[in-house]
């Protein structure tokens, strides 16, 4: 066989292999900013939808079904910030059984220990992703508002906790979403870990 022809074929084969593997890598080679934007976009899919939290997070006979009005995921210095606004009725009510909850959780993605899907009612559009952290390294700030019949808002002060677990709601009605968000969070964790370790 012609050696030149063989060389050419091997060269072409290698070129093809390289371009395929770089294409495959490109799919998950998003930057920190792009990955945060991707997760933010996934959170936006939840706006307007509802979820009934598992367990007895809310007592006193008030409605537990939480309606998500706005959600965001942003870079926040060395951390990321997850903001979730929700209310237990789809429309604001001026009665004592109504409340609005504003939660902000800040964490460094390098501290993520595990990402799993939490228990959810499968008949509802939203599910929850449980993010566990190394120690209580996630700062959770929560504000709860309610309204009197005079229309004035009431607020019992910002409550701040250090927690080892965070709940990220997602549109579980799209079955591909859990794996996509999990991969994005893992990718973000790996990038923060790489940047976090100069020594």
């Amino acid at each position, binding site marked *: 066989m012609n050696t030149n022809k063989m060389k050419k074929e091997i060269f072409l084969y290698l070129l093809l292999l390289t371009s395929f593997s770089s294409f495959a890598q490109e*799919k*998950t080679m998003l930057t920190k900013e792009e990955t945060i934007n*991707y997760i933010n976009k996934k959170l*936006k*899919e939840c*706006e*307007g*939808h509802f979820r009934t939290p598992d367990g007895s997070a809310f007592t006193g006979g008030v409605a537990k079904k939480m309606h998500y009005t706005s959600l965001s995921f942003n870079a926040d210095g060395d951390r990321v910030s997850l903001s979730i606004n929700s209310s237990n009725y789809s429309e604001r009510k001026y009665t004592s059984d109504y409340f609005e909850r504003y939660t902000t959780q800040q964490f460094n993605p390098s501290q993520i220990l595990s990402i799993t899907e939490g228990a959810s009612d499968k008949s509802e559009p939203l599910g929850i992703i449980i993010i566990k952290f190394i120690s209580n390294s996630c700062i959770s700030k929560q504000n709860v508002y309610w309204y009197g019949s005079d229309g004035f808002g009431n607020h019992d002060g910002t409550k701040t906790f250090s927690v080892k677990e965070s709940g990220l709601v997602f*549109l579980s*009605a799209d079955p591909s979403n859990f794996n996509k968000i999990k991969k994005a969070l893992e990718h973000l964790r790996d990038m923060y870990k790489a940047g976090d370790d100069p020594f």
Partner: protein
Amino acid sequence: MLTKEETIKYIQKKLKEIIDFEGRYPEMGKYTESGISFNDPKISIFRQVNYKNSSIVETTIDFNPVHITDITDGHTNDDGTIGYLKVKVVAKTGMVKTFKTESDPQPNNFNYWSKSTTNTQPTELLIAYLKSDGSNFTKIKKALEHLRDLCKAEDDPFGN
């Protein structure tokens, strides 16, 4: 091929065509608003119609174009001016909000107007369009499918 922004602009133009036409049911008056807005990753398609009994109904349909599974014509066998595109989406991903303002019981007394909101999550979303232009169904269908494909291509960095 149109970009995402250009496609949304095109759909906006098509949806606006129903303004000032009467709805397809006898109790309906004219459409006063119709259009689309983009709140990444979802689109909102809205319309407002004034009913002949003076009530006003605003409808907003929210969904992510990647969840479109099928688009059919809701009224193929009649010659009505307004038709509905039936957009089928993945179950529980679409949302329809209806905001109704009714004058009750005294006409033109705004103090007695009652307002009500309804939220539903149907699998089939109905989008009103100008049916009297025979080519509109295919044009809007193609534009929505193109938008879905553009959004799907963008949505894949962590897919599979």
